[in-house]
C-alpha cells in the first residue's frame, strides 16, 4: 500500500527525533526559536496523519522497504493516529507551559537538558503508538522509560532522584519481563510481527508463559494495582509539565501494547476468567487510588493517585471487551478509547493547573491552598473543568467514556462493574472536592506568588478540550473505530 501520504507515518517519529538532536547540539534552557518550529512541525505531521487515516483507513508502512516479518512494519490505525495527534497536542501544551515559566524555574543546570529528553520522549510515544512488531515495541518502551526517568531527574531535587530510581527499577523489571515473553514467542512462532503472529496462535505452554510474562511486565509499566507503587512518587516529584506528560500519555503506552497483544494475536486466549481478572485489578486500582487520593496531604500526590484510579477504568473495560454481547463489546471499545483520550487531556490539564496553584501558594499541601480561589480563579477553573471530566459528569469526554462503559456493563448484565464505575465516580468527586474546599476557605491575601497567566491559559485550553470531547465525541470516535480489533470491531466497522 504505497501512496503519497504514507511518509507521514515515519515522520511522526522522525520529526521529534530530529528536534531531539537539534536541541541537544547547544542545550539551552529556553530555546523558543528552536522549540516552537519543532512543535509546529510535529503537530502538523500528526494532524495530517490523523486526517489521512480518517479518509483512507488503516495505513501500513514497511520501514526500509522490507516487508514483515523480515522487516519492521508501522501501522497507523485509528487508535494510533488519534494518540499521535493527542500526543503532539499535549506535548505542545506542556512545552508552552515550560517556555512560559519564569526564569527561576531554570536555575538548575539540569534544566538545559529538558528539551532533548522531551523530544525523545515524544518520539518514543509516537513509536509505540505506531508499532506493529513485538521487539520494536520493546525498544520503543525502553526509550520511553529512559527519557521519562531522565525528565523526572531534571526536577533536580533529592526526592525526584529517589522517585526516578524507583521508577527506573520498575521500568527495567517490566521491560525485561516483556523481553522474556518476546523471546519465548519468537522461539514458538519464528516471527515478531503482530500480524503474522496472529496466524496459528495457540495455547501452548510456551505461549501461555510468554503471555503471562508480557502481561506482568506491561501491567507493572502501566502501574496497574497492585503494581502501582512506583507511579505516585515519580509523577508527584517531577516538574508539572513532565508529570502531565507521564500521567497523560506515558502510562498509556504499555496499556495500548497490552490491548494490541491481547485483542490481536492473544484474543482467543483472553478467556472470560482472564478478562474478569483484569477487571478485578482495575476495580482494585479505582478503589485504592481513589482512597489514597482522598487522604494524601500533597496536591500533586493527590493528582498522581488519581491517575492510578483512572487507569483502573481502562482495565475494568477489559471484561466488557470480550465477555459480552457484540453490541456491549462495541460500546466498551468506544468507552475505553474515549477514556484513554479524555483522561490524557483532563489529567495533563490538572497537573498543569496544579503546578500553577502550587507555585502560587509556594506549598505542596492541599491545606495551604486556602484563599487561592480569589487569587487564581483561572487556574482553579481549569482544575475544576478537568475534574468534571475525571468525575464523569456531563458534558465531558470522561462522562461519555464512563457512560459507554456503563452501558456495556448493563447490556452484558455484569452488575459488579456498574457499582465499580459509579463508586469510582463518587471517590473522584470526594478527592477533587477536597481541593475545592481548601481553595474556597478564607486565606491571607498577601502570601501569593504571581504566576504567568500563560500557565492558566494552557491548562484551561487542555481542560476545555476534555470537555469538548464529550460534546463532539462522534468524529473522534469514528476515527478511533478504524482498524479496531475484529473481536470488538465487527459491529463498529460494519456500521456506516
Amino acid at each position: 500500500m504505497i501512496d503519497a501520504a504514507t511518509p507521514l507515518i515515519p515522520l511522526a517519529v522522525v520529526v521529534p527525533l530530529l528536534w531531539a538532536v537539534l536541541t541537544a547540539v547547544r542545550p539551552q534552557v529556553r530555546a523558543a526559536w528552536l522549540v516552537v518550529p519543532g512543535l509546529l512541525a510535529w503537530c502538523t505531521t500528526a494532524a495530517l496523519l490523523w486526517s489521512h487515516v480518517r479518509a483512507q483507513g488503516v495505513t501500513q508502512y514497511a520501514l526500509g522497504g522490507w516487508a514483515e516479518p523480515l522487516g519492521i512494519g508501522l501501522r497507523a490505525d485509528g487508535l494510533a493516529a488519534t494518540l499521535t495527534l493527542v500526543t503532539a497536542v499535549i506535548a505542545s501544551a506542556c512545552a508552552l507551559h515550560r517556555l512560559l515559566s519564569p526564569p527561576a524555574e531554570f536555575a538548575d543546570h539540569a534544566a538545559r537538558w529538558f528539551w532533548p529528553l522531551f523530544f525523545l520522549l515524544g518520539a518514543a510515544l509516537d513509536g509505540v503508538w505506531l508499532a506493529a512488531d513485538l521487539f520494536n515495541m520493546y525498544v520503543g518502551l525502553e526509550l520511553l522509560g529512559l527519557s521519562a526517568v531522565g525528565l523526572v531527574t531534571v526536577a533536580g531535587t533529592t526526592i525526584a532522584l529517589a522517585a526516578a530510581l524507583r521508577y527506573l527499577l520498575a521500568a527495567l523489571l517490566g521491560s525485561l519481563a516483556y523481553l522474556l515473553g518476546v523471546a519465548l514467542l519468537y522461539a514458538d512462532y519464528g516471527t515478531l510481527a503482530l500480524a503474522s503472529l496472529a496466524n496459528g496462535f495457540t495455547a501452548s505452554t510456551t505461549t501461555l508463559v510468554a503471555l503471562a510474562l508480557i502481561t506482568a511486565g506491561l501491567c507493572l509499566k502501566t502501574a496497574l494495582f497492585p503494581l502501582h507503587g512506583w507511579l505516585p512518587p515519580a509523577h508527584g516529584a517531577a516538574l508539572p509539565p513532565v508529570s502531565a506528560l507521564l500521567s497523560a500519555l506515558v502510562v498509556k503506552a504499555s496499556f495500548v501494547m497490552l490491548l494490541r497483544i491481547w485483542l490481536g494475536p492473544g484474543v482467543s486466549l483472553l478467556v472470560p476468567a482472564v478478562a474478569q481478572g483484569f477487571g478485578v485489578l482495575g476495580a482494585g486500582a479505582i478503589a485504592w487510588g481513589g482512597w489514597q487520593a482522598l487522604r494524601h496531604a500533597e496536591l500533586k500526590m493527590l493528582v498522581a493517585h488519581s491517575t492510578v484510579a483512572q487507569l483502573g477504568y481502562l482495565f475494568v473495560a477489559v471484561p466488557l471487551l470480550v465477555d459480552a454481547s457484540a453490541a456491549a463489546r462495541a460500546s466498551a471499545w468506544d468507552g475505553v478509547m474515549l477514556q484513554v483520550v479524555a483522561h490524557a487531556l483532563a489529567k495533563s490539564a490538572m497537573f498543569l493547573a496544579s503546578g500553577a496553584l502550587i507555585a502560587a501558594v509556594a506549598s505542596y499541601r492541599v491545606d495551604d491552598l486556602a484563599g487561592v480561589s480569589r487569587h487564581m480563579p483561572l487556574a482553579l477553573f481549569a482544575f475544576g473543568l478537568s475534574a468534571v471530566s475525571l468525575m464523569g459528569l456531563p458534558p465531558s469526554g470522561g462522562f461519555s467514556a464512563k457512560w459507554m462503559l456503563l452501558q456495556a456493563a448493563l447490556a452484558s448484565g455484569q452488575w459488579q462493574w456498574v457499582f465499580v464505575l459509579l463508586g469510582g465516580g463518587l471517590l473522584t468527586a470526594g478527592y477533587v472536592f477536597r481541593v475545592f474546599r481548601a481553595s474556597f476557605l478564607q486565606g491571607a491575601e498577601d502570601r501569593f506568588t504571581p504566576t504567568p497567566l500563560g500557565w492558566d491559559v494552557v491548562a484551561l485550553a487542555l481542560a476545555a478540550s476534555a470537555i469538548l470531547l464529550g460534546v463532539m465525541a462522534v468524529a473522534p470516535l469514528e476515527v478511533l473505530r478504524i482498524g479496531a480489533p475484529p473481536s470488538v470491531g465487527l459491529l463498529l466497522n460494519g456500521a456506516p
Partner: protein
Amino acid sequence: MSPALWYALVGALLVAVAFAAFAAHTHVVRRLLAFNVMGTGSFLILVGLAQHERGPDPVPQALVLTGIVVAVASTALALVVFRRWFAATGRVALPEDDTP
C-alpha cells in the same frame, strides 16, 4: 539435547535466581546487578531457544545486540542516578525499602 537448548535452560535458571535476588535485596546496586544477570539470562534464552533446532539464526543474535546496548544504557543511567542519590543522602536503598 543440543548445546543451544542448554543455553536456554541455563538462561532460565539465571533469570530465576536473579529475579529472586532482585526481590530480596534493597541495595540499589545489588538490584542492578541482579537486573543485569536477569538480562543475560533472557539473552541466552532468546538466542538459545530460537537456534535449538534450525541452527544459526541471525535475527535473535541481532536482537540480543540491541538488547545489550539498551541494557548497558539503562544500567549506566541507573548508576548515575544512584550515585547522585548516594552522594546526596548517603543511603544505598530507596526510602520506602529502607525500613528493616
